[in-house]
C-alpha cells in the first residue's frame, strides 16, 4: 500500500533543510597550527576595492602581517559602528598575533579572507567563492580557520 496520495504535495509551512554534515578532524595540537581568519563581515585593506553593498560574491585577501590600522569594512548588512571603532570586533587580527607570540597557536596564516556575507548569490558563493578561498588556504598550508559571521 502506498501512503502517497498526491505526488509532489508540499507543506505550506516553509521547512528549511540543514545541509549534510561536513567534517574534517583536527589532527594537531593548537600550538602547532597555522590558523587563518576568515570573515563574512566585509573586512579588507583600506587600499583594496570596496565591496558592492547591494551584493558581492568576490573576496579580499588580508595578509597576515597587515596592521589592523590598515583595515576597514564595507558591508551593507549589519551595524558597522563597533567594527568601525575597532576592526578586531569582527576580525581579531591583533588578538591572533598576540596568541601566536604567546605560543598558543604556531602562527597567523599569511593569507586571511574577507568577503560580504548575509545575502548575495548563494550559488556563486557555494560553487566559486567558497572553493576558491578554500583552495588558497590549502596552497598556503593553513591548518585551521577561525571565522566570524552570523
Amino acid at each position, binding site marked *: 500500500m502506498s501512503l502517497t496520495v498526491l505526488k509532489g504535495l508540499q507543506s505550506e509551512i516553509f521547512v528549511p533543510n*540543514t*545541509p549534510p554534515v561536513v567534517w*574534517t578532524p583536527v589532527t594537531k595540537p593548537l600550538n602547532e597550527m597555522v590558523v587563518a581568519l576568515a570573515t563574512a563581515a566585509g573586512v579588507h585593506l583600506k587600499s583594496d576595492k570596496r565591496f558592492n553593498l547591494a551584493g558581492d560574491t568576490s573576496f579580499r585577501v588580508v595578509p597576515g602581517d597587515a596592521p589592523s590600522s590598515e583595515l576597514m569594512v564595507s558591508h551593507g548588512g549589519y*551595524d558597522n559602528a563597533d567594527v568601525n571603532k575597532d576592526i578586531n570586533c569582527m576580525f581579531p587580527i591583533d588578538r591572533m598575533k598576540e596568541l601566536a607570540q604567546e605560543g598558543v597557536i604556531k602562527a597567523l596564516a599569511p593569507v586571511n579572507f574577507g568577503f560580504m556575507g548575509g545575502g548575495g548569490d548563494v550559488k556563486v558563493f557555494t560553487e566559486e567563492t567558497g572553493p576558491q578561498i578554500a583552495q588558497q588556504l590549502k596552497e598556503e598550508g593553513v591548518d585551521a580557520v*577561525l571565522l*566570524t559571521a*552570523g
Partner: protein
Amino acid sequence: MIVQRAIEEAGIPTIIIAALPPVVRQSGSPRVSAPLVPMGANAGAPNDKEMQTAITKESLEALVSIQTPGRIVNLPYEYVAEI
C-alpha cells in the same frame, strides 16, 4: 555558513564565532562558538582586549575539543551594544 563548509570540505578544520547560533546551526556549520554578542561584534566589544582575547582563544580551544559535527559551545562573555 557556505564558505565555512567549503573550507571544511577541502580538508581544513574550522570554527565560526557566531552572534546568531540558531542561524549558523541551520546552515550546517561543523563547529560553532557563541558568546553573547550582537552581530557586528562577534569577537567581543570594541577596544575590550580582554574579552576579545578570551573569545578568540576559547573559540580556538573549542575547535580542538568539539568532537561532534554541528556542536555549539556557548562562551560566557556578554556585550550589549549601546544603540
